[in-house]
């Protein structure tokens, strides 16, 4: 290809455009990083004094500690139970025909379309009408319904790529269906299951809107605790929390990229 001055102009303006877009994505995180070291409790730019006190405060603030604990419990239980239910369902979805399959599929995947505030409100009203307390159990169920479609999808794709002949081979070697499942099918699906579980856990840990409808003081999750903090206080504690969050997520993605190549995971190769 011959490069005319116009081509160079095109290339460079493209690069500048992309850099500006990436700058837009990064801007709030850079700002939050600066803000988190602002000494005063009133944010000013540029900060007059620097300190780490908001990080210390973030770690001392009980609501955050409780929120982290609650969120971890809910994410662990929610995504694990969703993995169990979702794997089973993806399996029958992939393998069998049965009455009501399409309906069941539509209902389980509906949370992809239904706005989260509607899901939260629905479960809140349901719990109120049948007198179920707003407990951790209810939140776990809420999170299962929200993350289940992602687990089903992830496992279903793995099952589609699964070589069924390996199961036939195991069967011919005398393995009963259950043994085939536990020694062949599940071990070979493990990468898909792990990816589905991890994605579900992250989604669940971050879920805010639907949870807001169902939490109480005792069960509030980290995102809800953070939201409540912003409403009550204007100091940069949340900036410190956000920085920790961003660093953790970015580190996780960098690791994921090194080990799995993100472009492959996302099918944009």
């Amino acid at each position, binding site marked *: 290809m011959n490069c005319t001055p116009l081509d160079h102009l095109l290339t460079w303006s493209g690069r500048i455009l992309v850099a500006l877009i990436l700058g837009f994505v990064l801007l709030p995180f850079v700002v939050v990083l600066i803000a988190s070291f602002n000494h005063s409790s009133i944010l000013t730019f540029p900060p007059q004094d620097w300190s780490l006190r908001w990080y210390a405060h973030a770690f001392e603030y009980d609501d955050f500690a409780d929120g982290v604990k609650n969120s971890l419990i809910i994410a662990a239980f929610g995504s694990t139970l969703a993995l169990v239910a979702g794997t089973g369902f993806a399996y029958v979805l992939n393998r069998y025909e049965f009455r009501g399959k399409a309906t069941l599929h539509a209902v389980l995947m509906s949370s992809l379309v239904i706005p989260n505030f509607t899901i939260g409100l629905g479960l809140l009203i349901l719990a109120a009408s049948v007198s179920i307390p707003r407990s951790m159990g209810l939140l776990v169920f809420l999170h299962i319904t929200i993350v289940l479609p992602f687990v089903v999808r992830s496992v279903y794709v793995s099952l589609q790529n699964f*070589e069924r002949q*390996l199961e036939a*081979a195991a*069967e*011919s*070697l*005398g393995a*009963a269906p259950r043994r085939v499942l536990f020694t062949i099918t599940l071990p070979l699906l493990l990468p898909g299951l792990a990816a589905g579980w991890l994605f579900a856990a992250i989604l669940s840990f971050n879920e805010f809107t639907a949870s807001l409808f169902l939490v109480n003081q005792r069960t509030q999750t980290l995102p809800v605790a953070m939201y409540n903090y912003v409403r009550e206080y204007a100091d940069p504690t949340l900036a410190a929390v956000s920085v920790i969050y961003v660093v953790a997520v970015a580190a996780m993605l960098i690791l994921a990229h090194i080990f799995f190549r993100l472009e492959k995971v996302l099918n944009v190769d």
Partner: protein
Amino acid sequence: MLIDPKLQQPAEAVPGQPPARPAVKIDGVSKSFDGTLALEPTWLKIRKGEFLTLLGPSGCGKTTLLNLVAGFLEPDKGELFIDDALVTQVPVHKREIGIVFQNYALFPHMNVLKNVEYGLRTRGVPAAEARDRAMETLRLVKLDQFADRRPKQLSGGQQQRVALARALVIRPKVLLLDEPFSALDRNLRAAMQIELKEIQHSLGVTTIFVTHDQGEALSMSDRIAVMSKGRVRQIGSPEEIYASPADRFVGTFVGDANLLTGTVTTSESGTLTLDLAGTALTLPQSAAPEAAAGETVELFARPEACQLVAPGTPGAVPATVSFAVYQGAHVELHLACPAAAEGPIMLRVPVANVPKVGAAVAVALPEAPVIFTGEAQ
């Protein structure tokens, strides 16, 4: 050829002993998919220790039949017996069969040893014994030094031997081989055929082998069942199948074939006379006892049974050389012949003795050729 003569005549009737019970009995089994008949009702008995090949083109029903024996499919009608026990309703994992799949289906998450042990562990064989027996079988296929490798780290031939060891270690009542050589390159394929046949023979395991490759079928089988369109067309030893095909399909599918169209002139008092596009041919009536005068028949002859003779030789069919293909040891001659049923007549001549293209020649046919009547057209 490494085939033991004893094996070519499996122990059906040892004098003084009752005939052996069949290892596998297929009793009127049929199968259709979505209303399309994949396998017509089929009866087949496979003797203990026999190597039976299901040979046919793709879609002929051979794989369906194999899957029925394995238990991956349930027959619409008919019953299946393995060692005299009714197994029609027995699930795959209780059938005591060993299968070598086309792509081997080795478990990628287990090493070679674990793959081979698998069938023993499912049977509750203690770990130490399973290990010993698996190693022993791996020695049989000369792979004992690869026990720790993953299947992906092995070559195609090695993977196939692992698959074979995995199927054999459980001492199956029947060994099913589903096109096991199709993924191998040609040289390796020939070596593996010999090795498989030797192992099968030494263990005396009843084997059903599915293939579309007639060369494999002829070189390995005790008996061949040639299948087409969901039906077994002929079953017999490789020699029978090759020398006396039951119908045109078997004759043309197995080996090279020359077909000539003729009309029956007379068929009486032990003699059959045919008119092959002007050439009169006299044959014993036993070649086609039911052929009536005036009927159109097809005469079938293998290339090596035909001879190139001088034009005008009585009883020989006139032909013209259309082209010659040099093949190293010999030359393949293609002849245009008015009597040919389809395509040219083909025969092989020594390199030293090749007529020119366009030369008029004549082909002497075998004295007792196979005649296809009725469905010939």
